[in-house]
């Protein structure tokens, strides 16, 4: 049987919208296609869970609220006292057979991801996000769950002036519309998707 065609959430929005010609854009939008997203729930004190994650993914869960630990191409985002999101750009994260008393659930198709970068990225986010994103308050490797334009979004500060925005897949097209409109006044480049 032939390989099934995978349709990404932003396919219909981004197709044809790419405009690499914009010079000195205030913001660049690029769709991210992480290979894998796993939701982790469990007790951070559970040694079984910790060692399973370390052995399988070389990941240590962040314990400080709203922070991210990175190990190679895999990031672990703190979502709650007993909840994290593991995201891998390149690897298919295969949940370990016995993750202690924790739970690993595949959500790779559940969220669509946009990467916003550029000098005006904070100004754009501040149009919809009530959190304080000043680098002193929200430095690199800080994450948050928030609402932007009434869409529940996970925000990950990946590098200086680079943010990944995870929105539920079903909201992707709406969210794309909001983001592109919010960026327009700053000069916006739409880059091809990166996986």
């Amino acid at each position, binding site marked *: 049987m032939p390989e099934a065609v995978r349709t990404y959430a932003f396919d219909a929005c981004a197709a044809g919208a790419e405009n690499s010609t914009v010079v000195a854009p205030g913001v660049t939008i690029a769709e991210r296609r992480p290979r894998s997203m796993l939701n982790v729930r469990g007790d951070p004190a559970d040694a079984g869970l910790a060692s399973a994650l370390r052995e399988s993914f070389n990941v240590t869960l962040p314990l400080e609220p709203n922070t991210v630990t990175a190990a190679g191409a895999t990031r672990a985002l703190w979502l709650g006292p007993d909840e994290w999101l593991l995201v891998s750009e390149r690897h298919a994260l295969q949940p370990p057979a016995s993750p202690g008393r924790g739970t690993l659930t595949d959500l790779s198709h559940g969220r669509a991801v946009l990467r916003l970068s550029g000098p005006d990225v904070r100004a754009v986010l501040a149009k919809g996000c009530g959190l304080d994103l000043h680098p002193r308050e929200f430095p690199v490797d800080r994450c948050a769950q928030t609402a932007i334009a009434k869409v529940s979004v996970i925000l990950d500060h990946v590098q200086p002036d680079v943010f990944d925005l995870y929105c539920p897949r*079903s909201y992707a097209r709406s969210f794309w519309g909001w983001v592109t409109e919010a960026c327009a006044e700053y000069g916006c480049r739409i880059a091809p998707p990166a996986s």
Partner: protein
Amino acid sequence: MTQRFRLASGGLVDRSRPCAFSFDGRDLQGYAGDTLASALLANGVHLVGRSFKYHRRRGIFGAGAEEPNALVQLETGARTEPNTRATQIELYDGLTAASQNRWPTLDRDAGAIYNVFSRLLPAGFYYKTFMWPRSWWLRYEHVIRHAAGMGQSPRAPDPDHYAHRHAHCDVLVAGGGPAGLTAALAAARTGARVIVANDDFEWGGALLREAVEVDGRPGLEWIRNAVAELATYPDVTLLARSTVFGYFDHNLLGVVQAVHPRASHAPRQRLWKVRAKQVVLAGGAIERPLVFADNDLPGVMLASAVSTYVNRYGVAPGQRAVVFANNDSAYATALDLHRAGVVIAAVVDPRLDPKGELPTSARAAGIEILAGHAVARARGGKHVESVLAGPVDNGFVGAAQRELACDLLCVSGGWSPAVHLFSQSKGRLRYDERITAFVPDVSAQAERSAGAARGLFSLNRCLADGAEAGAAAAEAAGCRRISAAVPAALEVADDPMLPLWDIQSDATRTSKRFVDLQNDVTARDVALGVREGYRSVEHLKRYTTLGMGTDQGKTSNINGLAILAALIDAQIPDVGTTTFRPPYTAVTLGAIAGPEIGAHFDPVRLSPMHDTHEVAGARFINAGLWRRPMVYPRAGESDPDATNREVLAVRRKAGIVDVSTLGKIDVQGRDAATFLERVYVNRWRNLAVGKARYGLMLREDGLIFDDGTTTRIGEDRFHMTTTTANAGRVMSHLEYYLQVHWPELDVRLTSVSDHWAAVALAGPESRNVLAALTMADVGTAALPYMGYCEAIIAGVPARIFRISFSGELAYEINVPADYGAALWNALLDAGRAYELGVYGTEAMGVLRIEKGHIAGMEIDGRTTPDDVGLGGMVAADKDCIGKPLLARPALRAEDRKQLVGLVPVDGRSAIPKGAQLVVDPQRAAPNPIIGHVTSTCYSPTLIRPIALALLQRGRARHGEKLYATSPLSNTVVHVEVVPHVFYDPKGERLRA
């Protein structure tokens, strides 16, 4: 000749950049840097509008936010904006504005007739006159509403867009004058994050109108340097053209910014929601008018405004001026005018011997001072031509009056600190006798006032006070205080002011002495209100409209309070003030709505297969935030016909429907089954791995909360589904119980709603369609009714649940969302051989009504399991959420409404939606209602209309005939009560 009143030099206007504009159709010219008001005055145009009630001629009175008169209709068509203050409109080339509240023209206004009959229009006129006969109010109202109001709202949709912006800072400084700038500098130098908002397009506030020096250099130079320094700090945001309009709880402030210049894609205005650790209120002070006869004539202006026009805009608003003031500050205006070559006829001052520095300078410049005098009346037709002044004693001017010819009368009754934002923050005011005004006293939030906003009117003290406030605010926000030099200005010694509230004389007893220019409230109106018993300031405001309108009494407040206090023999602080509420100045609705309009009013949720539905020509329906395919009509086919076709395809062959919107929750952990037993009414422990079961959840009060199918996909793992509408609520409900009530349970939840695309494949041919797409054994032995398996379908790893909502042999297939479209298309391809069709929510609804399955219309928050025929599901030998309260007598009453089916007695009449069931439709009201229709449709399978209903003791009424009445559609249908399962009551088809 243009700009006749423009001075040859001076001011901040750019004489090399002329701006053409039009006012009431006249083409005029001003300069960049002008406001509309200054440009009009430069052209000798004072008359800008007609007053609200009496249609009296009104001229430009102020120079900023306090302006009560010069409200104009800015621009035309879709971009028109009513009631904009000409004193704050930054002039641009091509600007078009028009006066308001006049017809047919500003000069010859028919409404001026109201002034002639003004004796008949006292305060409360409308309340008194249009009460009788009571039933006539609607007729009166039509006429009165037409006469009321000033400008015209735009009729066309706004072509511009507006943005919102969240911001956070250590210190928000409201005000860009001397105190605001020193506060911002002091805070910025500590490294604090600072936002400075200035409602003007120029920075400098009062310094812009004062010919003074700071640190021995011209004031304007100091402003330039201060702003330039602020711009060097990366954590300082300078917002010009930005009004702090509201001070809300938790130090949240609203700022509305006019975006300029308009870059492409830029919003017209930006609404900032600023969360500030500390706030410095440096909004300055507002000059008060004086109350005397005909004090509203064009050409009567606030003294400070005149100084602004002379010094900032290089405009002389007249050629021969009288200055009438009870304090020293207006002497600066006299000197400014004198320097600009305007003749000063006299300074009229009620104080017997003004000898402060400014009066002394005026005397030295040869300006005549009429000490101990007051102006009793301004005279003139269209414009002030002269004033009558005479010796004043306790507010009364005697008969010995002197007429002073002039075309400009500058008035100053003292200064009131702009305490609006402070009061909005719920801070407490204190009355300051020295300046006869209210000043901030006790703070309620993390703010401090600085400079003139707290009653310090000397420039030198404003500069120092602002610097201290800024440093203290930054320190309070957690920044380290640093010592820095404070700029200084010369102290000017001044004499105390002399309060003078309502100036009367024998000759002006019946003349209009205006207190509130915008609302046409006179001192006599205040007196009448008091005589009629409106002695509370809040009552007086509503009765006379004193302090209402777009300016909210910025210039009239204190004068009104003082006149009221005198009339009731009270002190001003005892009278108190009316409540200050946001906004400080009007905010356009577009800015408040921001981007949340049109497509962005609410986000839209789309299924992974949405585009395939679009291509298939689906008509969509909003289901919460979701957009779901309702029906797929073919060319020329009506929606009902299409629905019937879709239903019959499922009943006869096969169909697919997109059910991705269902809530899906992954329930995992050793105690998962125990948890489900507690949240569902039925049993879960005994469910085998690989089996699905229908579950019913109750609210705490025993009524049905939600239903859905939950499948044991592993020993410690269940896949729960919820209804589309309750997906979020169920997740919160379950998470709450786990976190708060049962933390000991080893259960973890993950919402997987968006991860899985879901398709229901239903119909007698559905097994054949499925088998064509997978190597897995989907025979009824391997995958029986309510069975579950995992398989590769169309190359995609899938979960297959053999469950049925339609009543046919059916499967629900889940695949990771990005493969949803691929699965859908593969099913279409494989289904072609079996005449498979697609169906939407309408057909899905018909199928489930035929089968008697409940949905949101039956689970309406009022029904119990027994009501809908599912009482047997409630396990007797275990507890669950809602079970204790399900035992309440009212929920077990015999006459509760129970789920039944209805068919029309004639076999063809449609049963109306929401119809009420009665025994006898002819009976007079109140006709007892014994039930209501919940779901209704035409059943193409049974070839007749059918309905589900909730009917008192319904299960005992099968076979009875009742009437379904719908007053909304004015229909009555004779119906027969039948069991609620119309189709395949034994369930043989779904087990096939």
